[in-house]
């Protein structure tokens, strides 16, 4: 009797293998090449790669440009150019490249004006429902009117993304790198005294995010990030901290053209040695951020936007308490 069941089970397995022989085809590579050839044939504009470019101009008001207890506000103008390139290689590999140029100019507080050059590239591969990627990210912030402000950040990253369905994914992202100033010196053993070396911060972070398209109109994202910052500033290890950040965001398509965006973030920074002034307990900052806005698609390639952002540093250190309001409006073109 048992032999009968084993034989029956084996028969079912064999029939399935025969029926679905496509799935286990030895010539999977041949199929991939055939499909690639068919794709080229089918497209009137052959697309061996994907390239998108965007440019935008924005203007707004920032109520606390330097994020200080004594708020000083200023108007600003911003220019943005973005380029995204993606190309599929053999064996399921894909190469991605992203470049951004972002110029931010303040009208009166010109020391804060800066130009950002950002590039990010990597390769990823789909393995079943997982997407695994690795890459490098470089950002250079140039302050034309404040040499001490200029710095760059470079980091390597690795991620694993799991597409649970077409509308749900979760991802784990690891980054390791450094933030380095080009002229600003690191604090020495006392405040107001400096070392010969430039200020450097070594950074390591881990981030877990979940994204879901609950309906064709509503999408949610939830992110948790843990970061360790280790700087070479000696006075009270001034910039050494561990931080935890939680940030949910919601996007909703009100109409075909009008989309609403909102995000909230809670960031908790625990400093290693820095103490609150005139006390003996360590400083812990709690930074709350809220952003709401909307984008309106004039037509296929042109989008108008309006955003409001609020940021508040709730800290026991009165020298660093601040809040900030930023309103931005702009126009973006995709070509």
């Amino acid at each position, binding site marked *: 009797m048992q032999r009968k069941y084993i034989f*029956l089970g084996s028969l079912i397995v064999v029939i399935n293998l025969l029926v679905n022989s496509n*799935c286990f085809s030895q010539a999977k590579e041949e*199929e991939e090449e055939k499909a690639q050839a068919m794709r080229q044939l*089918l497209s*009137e504009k052959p697309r061996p790669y994907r390239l998108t470019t965007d440019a935008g101009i924005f203007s707004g008001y920032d109520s606390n440009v330097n994020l200080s207890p004594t708020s000083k506000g200023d108007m600003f103008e911003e220019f943005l150019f973005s380029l995204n390139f993606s190309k599929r290689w053999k064996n399921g590999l894909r190469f991605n490249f992203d470049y951004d140029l972002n110029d931010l100019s303040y009208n009166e507080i010109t020391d804060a004006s*800066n130009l950002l050059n*950002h590039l990010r590239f990597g390769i990823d591969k789909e393995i079943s429902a997982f997407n695994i990627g690795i890459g490098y990210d470089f950002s250079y912030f140039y302050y034309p009117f404040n040499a001490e402000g200029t710095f760059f950040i470079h980091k390597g990253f690795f991620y694993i993304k799991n597409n649970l369905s077409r509308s749900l994914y979760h991802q784990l992202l690891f980054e390791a790198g450094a933030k380095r100033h080009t002229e600003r010196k690191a604090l020495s053993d006392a405040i107001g005294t400096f070392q010969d070396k430039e200020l450097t911060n070594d950074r390591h972070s881990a981030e877990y995010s979940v994204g879901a398209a609950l309906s064709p109109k509503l999408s949610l994202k939830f992110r948790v990030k843990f970061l360790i910052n280790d700087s070479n500033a000696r006075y009270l290890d001034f910039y050494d901290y561990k931080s935890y950040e939680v940030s949910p965001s919601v996007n909703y398509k009100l109409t075909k053209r009008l989309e609403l965006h909102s995000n909230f973030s809670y960031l908790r920074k625990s400093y290693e040695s820095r103490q609150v002034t005139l006390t003996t307990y360590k400083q812990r900052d709690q930074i709350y951020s809220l952003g709401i806005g909307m984008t309106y698609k004039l037509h296929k390639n042109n989008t108008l936007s309006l955003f409001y952002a609020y940021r508040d540093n709730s800290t026991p250190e009165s020298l660093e308490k601040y809040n900030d309001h930023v309103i931005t409006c702009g126009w973006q073109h995709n070509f």
Partner: protein
Amino acid sequence: MKKILVVFIFTLLFFPVTIFAQTAKIIDIEGEVLVKKEASLEWQKAKIDMLLDKQSEVKTQEDSYCTLAFDEELRNILIIKENSHIKIEEVKPGNIFLPEGRVFTLIENLSKHEQFQIRTPTAIAGARGTGWITAFFDNKASVFCFVDTVYIQGLDNSGKITGEMDLPSDNGLDIGDGGLFGEMFSLTDANYEEWSDFMDYEGDLREGDEEEVLDGGSLEDLRQEQREDQGQIGQEIRHNDEESRQQQQQQQRVQ
């Protein structure tokens, strides 16, 4: 009996592709789209990831569309455009009945002996691998072939084949009442533009959320980083000023 069931369930779990291969899946929706899974059931609102079997029907309203995938790799897809109605007569191989409306079809991955067909009251259009548009309005079918060849069969009122021909790429054909073939015509710029938009859309579906993949370096995060850094110089100055002030106060007390 129990053991047969266990083996059967094990087979189904171990070969999930078996399920997908025998159903179509809704992968995208815009606007109002209704679905009827069986003739005896009511129309219900369509949802993304819904699986549709043989005899399922899909109806789209004004300014709406629905995209069906017939395989996991999204190489065989069908878009049901606005004000259209289709019935899935077979999933594998694909056999769709279009009594009204317009569908865009892109077929890239069928096995040797399979064909994908769109049947209207007056014609059948099908292929093994190509892209085409099929429409049926006012008792007339129209087929637009963009690449390779689509075969077309005319149908009379009783469903009998009245004639057959291959429609080459860059051409269109109307098939009227009783399966009468009209004159072949060249595709217009408007036809190509629409097809090009469809290919871009299809590319987006396959490429997925690439922006999410690169999200770790988003501009927003970088700008937050820059704002915080900007605040740091001010922090050092304020702490330095505060310490100097305290030292002065101490000196004054001593004096």
